[in-house]
């Protein structure tokens, strides 16, 4: 009988299962849950995109594409980044089409991190950065951000964590779970710190299309940053294409070439059918995207107002599709709050500490749901908070 414990990789065994998993099981076993817990759009992929995939299935041979991705898609990605964010990437050598933004993050970390390298991770954040860094024998150094700064990374916080071992900064804005964004001025300050170092930036901008009131700015556009930035994005959030598994990364040629090697050996190429559809999404769907953004914005306003009214203070998030209200006034921890809310009102939200220790005292609420659904959930949360803060007996 094999002793599995002795054959498995030590690094993999050390990896903690996602903090969300436990809570997920709890929700899955409750009848009639009103969930505000997902990180994917409720909208259907635009019909034009779906139709293109159907046509591709009928007419095209579904064969491997070039490792880097279809030439036409890379060229459209390059045009899109120029048109939207004033970024210049050569589609021939600086763009790689990946299996979702997730693979792009994985490639970037694997291509750059040597054992002992420190990687700065801005928290609260999406759950995948730290485990991958540690799998590479890197050292994950978290930088907690604060509500009073609207969960932005400040230059001082960055400076305080830089050492001569720092290899990379992972900068995830617009942010999941807080909804915080970094404006051009905020990014200028970060660039000022990094410009004369060899520290690279992995900028995860998967939510870049979803900002409210102001246009997204990429750190790669700031002077001196293009050469030290790995830009990661994808189709899941902006075009409601989560299940299509398609993302991309852009980086200076010497880095992109190394990442492409890993991609060639591990993945071959992203799904060809999805790539055909994505050409249309990125080229022809501005209107559809705008419609979704407008709808998210309406929902965002109703949630921010709702939570503040209930007494769970909530800064106004300007990006992604999450609000991140503070639940400290209830005297509960994030996990207690979520477990009780699920048990008593059958409403599922995600504990903030699932996204890093600095998320403690907050919960993530997704507004990728219909207005009707959100308003119903708000009523339940209001009742719950009144019951637990003595506002209502």
């Amino acid at each position, binding site marked *: 009988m094999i002793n599995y414990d002795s054959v498995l990789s030590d690094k993999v065994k050390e990896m903690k299962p996602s903090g*969300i998993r436990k809570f*997920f099981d709890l929700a899955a076993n409750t009848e009639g849950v009103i*969930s505000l817990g997902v*990180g994917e759009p409720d909208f259907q992929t635009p019909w034009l995109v779906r139709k293109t995939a159907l046509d591709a299935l009928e007419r095209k041979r579904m064969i491997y594409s070039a490792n880097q991705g279809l030439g036409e898609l890379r060229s459209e990605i390059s045009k899109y980044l120029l048109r939207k964010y004033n970024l210049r990437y050569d589609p021939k050598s600086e763009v790689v089409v990946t299996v979702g933004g997730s693979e792009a993050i994985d490639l970037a970390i694997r291509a750059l991190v040597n054992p002992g390298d420190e990687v700065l991770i801005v928290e609260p954040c999406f759950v995948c950065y730290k485990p991958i860094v540690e799998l590479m024998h890197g050292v994950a150094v978290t930088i907690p951000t604060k509500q009073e700064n609207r969960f932005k990374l400040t230059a001082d916080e960055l400076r305080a964590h830089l050492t001569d071992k720092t290899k990379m900064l992972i900068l995830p804005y617009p942010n999941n779970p807080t909804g915080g964004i970094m404006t051009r001025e905020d990014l200028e300050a970060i660039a000022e710190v990094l410009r004369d170092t060899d520290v690279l930036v992995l900028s995860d901008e998967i939510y870049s299309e979803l900002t409210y009131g102001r246009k997204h700015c990429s750190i790669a556009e700031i002077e001196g940053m293009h050469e030290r930035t790995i830009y990661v994005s994808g189709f899941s959030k902006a075009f409601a294409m989560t299940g299509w598994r398609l993302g991309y990364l852009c980086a200076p040629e010497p880095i992109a070439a190394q990442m492409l090697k890993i991609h060639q050996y591990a993945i071959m190429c992203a799904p060809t059918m999805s790539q055909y559809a994505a050409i249309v999404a990125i080229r022809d769907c501005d209107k559809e995207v705008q419609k979704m953004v407008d709808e998210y*914005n309406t929902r965002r*306003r109703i949630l921010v107002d709702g939570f503040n009214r209930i007494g769970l203070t909530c800064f106004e998030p300007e990006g992604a599709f999450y609000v991140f209200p503070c639940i400290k006034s209830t005297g509960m921890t994030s996990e207690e709050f979520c477990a009780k809310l699920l048990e008593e009102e059958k409403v599922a939200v995600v504990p903030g500490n699932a996204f890093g220790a600095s998320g403690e005292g907050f919960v993530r609420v997704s507004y990728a749901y219909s207005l009707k659904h959100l308003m119903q959930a708000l009523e339940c949360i209001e009742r719950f908070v009144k019951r637990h803060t003595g506002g209502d007996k």
Partner: protein
Amino acid sequence: MRNKLISLLRQNARLSNEQLAIMLGTTEAAVAAEIRALEKQGVIMGYSAIVNEEKIDEDKVTAIIELRVTPQKDCGFDEIAKLVAQYDEVDKVSLMAGAYDLAVTVKGDNVKDIAMFVYQKLATLSGVLSTATHFVLKTYKDKGILIETEEKDEREFIMP
């Protein structure tokens, strides 16, 4: 703000001015003023409930009747269309481009009711050349709302 306001009211006319103001990022007073203006200008003509007819007891029958008519001097189709619209049985009258002129939606208690309305009242109007009656069997979508096909949310409850 006007278009977005109309679109929100179309989805749910029972939203309060306060809720609408939050959603639109404006003030309650501005919403109230805009709604008053829309009502005054006749853009919003009224507010009604979207009812799933199959779930209420009344066993009403609905038919769509294609009418071919002779347009009249000076007023074209308007006069006969307005005349048809006078009948209580008539729910909706539209002028059409194509093989016929007026599309008339009629509601009655039963098929016989509608048949009598067509051959006694509509067909005999002067100017009506012919009628073709189509009975509605089932409605899947009404006023932009899908009926009885509430889509199941297949997403997981919790995802990072």
